[in-house]
């Protein structure tokens, strides 16, 4: 019953490859994590609460997780439409559009940050169009949402795309025969089928967006109590050599992200169970 004990197999190399995996995992991931949590336990509960209770900290958490949520919700709507169009319809240049979806994975965040800032600045290509309407994007919380939309879109499109491709057309045919409209088919047949994947994608997008630093710091303007995100506050604390405060914020962010992922996992499990019962 020991952990990592394998079932019998004729294939070679289990010990070697698992050894390399565990060694590298410990060195690069586990030890640094242990050190982080070790540091976080030093200030104790009182120190923890004192750091978190700061007005500036609370506001940064609100901005970070609030704009992440908003960006993910926007991407859920447009991500589903984009995935749908890419899977179901054909149009010229579809392959190129499909390839572009992965751009935020490959484009460094700092590059995305300066590009989006230049685009949405008051004298920028899009910013100058929005200025007469009284809409300011760059150097406001709205800019943060724009940057997070950019970086989190592929998580959502790429998790629903394969599910949409594998959907059985027979289900839709049956619904059509029974007199359902296309919208009814989408909302009652297709959407429930892609919902678990959508939820997973949204959770990954949210975790990624909440931790984002590079693209946001350029466009946010970084005004404390207005457009300052928690990762930036961590670097600000580090610059003042406040290692304890930085660690507390880091652990808090990790805990919130893990909680979100755990919650999604539980919902999935509950959903699977319910479907299994039927």
């Amino acid at each position, binding site marked *: 019953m020991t952990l990592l004990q394998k079932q019998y197999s004729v294939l070679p190399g289990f010990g070697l490859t698992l050894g*390399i995996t565990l060694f590298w995992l410990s060195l690069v991931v586990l030890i640094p994590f242990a050190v982080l949590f070790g540091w976080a336990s030093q200030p104790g509960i009182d120190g923890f609460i004192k750091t978190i209770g700061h007005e500036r900290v609370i506001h940064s958490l609100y901005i970070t997780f609030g704009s992440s949520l908003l960006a993910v919700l926007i991407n859920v709507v447009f991500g589903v439409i984009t995935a749908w169009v890419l899977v179901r319809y054909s149009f010229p240049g579809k392959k190129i559009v499909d390839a572009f979806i992965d751009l935020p994975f490959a484009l460094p965040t700092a590059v995305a940050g300066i590009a989006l800032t230049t685009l949405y600045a008051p004298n920028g290509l899009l910013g100058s169009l929005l200025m007469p309407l009284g809409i300011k994007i760059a150097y406001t919380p709205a800019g943060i949402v724009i940057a997070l939309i950019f970086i989190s879109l592929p998580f959502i499109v790429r998790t629903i795309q394969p599910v949409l491709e594998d959907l059985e057309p027979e289900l839709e045919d049956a619904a059509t025969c029974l007199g359902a409209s296309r919208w009814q088919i989408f909302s009652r047949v297709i959407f429930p089928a892609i919902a678990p994947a959508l939820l997973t994608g949204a959770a990954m997008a949210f975790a990624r967006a909440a931790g984002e630093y590079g693209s946001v710091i350029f466009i946010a303007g970084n005004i404390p109590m207005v457009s300052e995100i928690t990762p930036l506050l961590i670097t600000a604390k580090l610059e003042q050599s406040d290692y304890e405060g930085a660690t507390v914020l880091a652990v808090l962010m990790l805990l919130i992200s893990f909680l979100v992922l755990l919650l999604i996992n539980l919902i999935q499990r509950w959903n699977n169970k319910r479907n299994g019962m039927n």
Partner: protein
Amino acid sequence: MNQSFRRTEKSWVRRSLTGIALVFVLLFIALPMFLVFGEAFSKGWAFYRDTLSQSDAVSAIGLTLLTAAIAVPLNVLFGVAAAWAIARFNFRGKSFLITLIDLPFSVSPVVAGLMYLLLFGNQTALGVWLDNHDLKIIFAVPGIVLATTFVTFPFVARELIPLMQSQGADEEHAALVLGAGSLQTFWHVTLPNIKWGLLYGVILTNARAMGEFGAVSVISGHIRGVTNTIPLHVEILYNEFNIAGAFVCASILALLAIVTLVIKSFVEWQQHRSHQQSLRRSGIAAQSLPSDSTGPVTALNPL
């Protein structure tokens, strides 16, 4: 197939959905990238060349290449080993191990940098010992390499595990039964099967390693010409209001991103083609064999 059966939406719905998706992708994803190149060449080719030949830019490019040259091979070795252990064997704690491998995905890059700062900083015994022996890790090149390794840790494994799981171990079993050694089996059977997925994993790891900003920013100490990578150099130029210069350096990274996407499309095309080929081959095999003989063969498959 019954063609008269309506399986799609009215044409105005199709057109407007396609329009929405195209405008969204163009406006939010593609436009920022085109802007990078537009701005980079806005002051002409001579300015472009001059910006890249400045000593700070040259050393930033050198450090970025060095970092990738160390972090990428280490993570590739790890990724292949992890994929072999996870996709080819069943053991207790496997899903927990996969969760741990995915951990760096859900950690903010700033927190990643902070972890190494805490581990090697001179507030710890290890940090003091390193300091006494004149070994510099944080605010130096080793720290940058470590942080980059952390951030790019899961990519190769993540790319290979589903690929190897879907392929199954039949071909490796066959090779071993026929008397091939372990390394021979890996080199002549496994590697050719996973080469395209591996290539994409390597390219993506490389792009992320060269472009990492947050983690490297925390641990580098921003020493100009010494611990500056290309993304950090972009930030410095941008903050000095040398916007065009920042975009010049950014355009190298954007080009790298485009190359990554092109290779990804190529890899997908290759995988699609080999999938079609194997479908065709098994189709022929199924026709030439009596239908009941396929039963026991699939039953032997451990997956």
